[in-house]
């Protein structure tokens, strides 16, 4: 692997940049691997990287039906934060946040993690109660999250409208300063390059068509468009397509896949210094390094794999954005797109073993997948390597739906009275 640095950039420039090697080879499948990951998004590529780097399993293939990083990794609004309420969630997302810090150096690939701060707006008394509960719990869990008054929130984010006459006035905000954004594509590319350097095969354009199981029920490998590939250890990290893959192993899952839209404005000079989220009005916004306002919209109401969202969702989102940030009403939407989010009944992921020996799952991240990337990847790798979950992901098992031990952040935050 050619090390990336200002020096190598300079040296290669003198050669007209002719000397750069492939960041990762386009591998063809070998007959067998020690481990296979299905899905080459940030989570899957990261899991392969950590398998090789931390757990010494280097004979690994990542199999992707399209192009790596072409799913939700490249379609999200890149928000990173860890100020979740429940211990299980706080530990999970903070594990990820700690890995984000230093990821560029670890991968030798600039993921442009920008600690801009994530500010969540409180618009009513119930929001205040809920956010304070988060802040106190986060404090005792060692996760930074602080309360801001409306005026402090405006100081932190000047475009914010804090007029008490607004339809949804800003009564205060919860701020996680370590939260922020990263450049989404580079996360997948950085993991791909680093994993490939450790010997991982990245096999693109190779859809999995079946999962082969032995007489004992354990996995033997995957059937693909390019033939059978044997492995006794298969990790599925296929986001919105997880249900489809798990059904190949005969497993029905508590998952539904919904369209989620996002959009960006035309680029403008720096005007928006942080990430702002308003769950009450469904608006999420930050400004990218390039200058685009990056805006998360809501999900459509129905299950779909079409990656095609509806206009009325965009209308609603932009109305909300203009309400909170009235100076942006003349800004213009440059591009909108749809992704597929896989959602579990408690809106928390499933990350661990499955009832099929040798089959591991990482899915159900809903809208929270990007921020968890390094953490989920590491924990999936751990679980596959040890054939048992790490204490952090142990609560995220499939059995919780049977026993009733749900991890329902949304229920804890929502419900008006």
């Amino acid at each position, binding site marked *: 692997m050619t090390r990336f640095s200002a020096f190598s950039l300079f040296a290669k420039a003198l050669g007209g940049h002719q000397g750069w090697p492939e960041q990762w080879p386009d591998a063809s499948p070998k007959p067998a691997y020690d481990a296979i990951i299905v899905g080459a998004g940030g989570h899957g590529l990261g899991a392969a990287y950590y398998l090789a780097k931390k757990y010494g399993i280097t004979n690994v293939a990542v199999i992707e039906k399209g192009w790596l990083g072409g799913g939700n990794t490249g379609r999200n609004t890149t928000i990173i934060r860890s100020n979740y309420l429940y211990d299980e969630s706080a530990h999970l997302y903070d594990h990820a946040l700690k890995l984000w810090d230093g990821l560029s150096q670890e991968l030798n690939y600039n993921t442009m993690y920008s600690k801009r701060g994530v500010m969540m707006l409180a618009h009513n008394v119930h929001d205040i109660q809920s956010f304070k509960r988060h802040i106190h719990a986060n404090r005792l869990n060692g996760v930074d999250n602080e309360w801001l008054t409306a005026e402090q929130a405006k100081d932190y984010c000047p475009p914010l409208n804090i007029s008490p006459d607004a339809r949804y006035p800003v009564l205060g905000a919860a701020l996680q300063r370590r939260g922020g954004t990263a450049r989404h594509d580079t996360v997948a590319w950085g993991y791909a390059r680093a994993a490939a350097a450790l010997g991982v095969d990245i096999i693109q354009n190779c859809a999995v068509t079946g999962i082969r199981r032995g007489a004992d029920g354990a996995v033997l490998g995957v059937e693909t468009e390019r033939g059978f590939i044997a492995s006794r250890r298969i990790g599925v990290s296929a986001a919105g397509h997880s249900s489809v893959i798990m059904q190949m192993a005969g497993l029905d899952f508590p998952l539904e896949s919904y369209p989620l839209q996002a959009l960006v404005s035309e680029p403008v000079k720096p005007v928006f210094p942080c990430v702002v989220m308003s769950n009450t009005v469904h608006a999420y916004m930050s400004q990218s390094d390039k200058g685009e306002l990056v805006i998360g919209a809501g999900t459509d109401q129905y*299950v779909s794999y079409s990656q095609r969202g509806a206009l009325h969702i965009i209308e609603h989102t932009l109305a909300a954005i203009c309400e909170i940030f009235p100076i942006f009403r003349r800004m213009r939407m440059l591009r909108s797109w749809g992704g597929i989010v896989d959602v579990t009944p408690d809106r928390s992921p499933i990350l661990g073993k499955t009832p099929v020996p040798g089959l591991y799952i990482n899915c159900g991240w809903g809208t929270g997948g990007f921020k968890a990337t390094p953490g989920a990847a590491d924990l999936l790798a751990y679980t596959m390597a040890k054939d048992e979950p790490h204490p952090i992901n142990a609560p995220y098992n499939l059995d919780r739906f049977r026993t009733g031990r749900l991890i329902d952040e949304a229920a804890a935050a929502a419900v008006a009275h």
Partner: protein
Amino acid sequence: MLLIHCPYCDQQRAEIEFAYAGEAHIARPLDPAAMSDEDWARYLFIRSNPRGRHHERWRHIHGCGRFFNAVRDTATDKFEATYQAGKPRR
């Protein structure tokens, strides 16, 4: 915005008049108390979530108010049929 045929009104109406109501033909068990935890969890949470033909429920909530069933292709979002609740699975 989808255009949805309401099988009660017998009209195509805009999606914003409707509320999606999840997968169809998952009847509430007649005797939940007799069920195992596994089976109960399956009823509550397991969904087929196919890429392709999907049986689902909608409610014409801002119209005639009725819940009804539909078959829609989740890869294209195109409706194959809508039919009244209680009618056999298409």
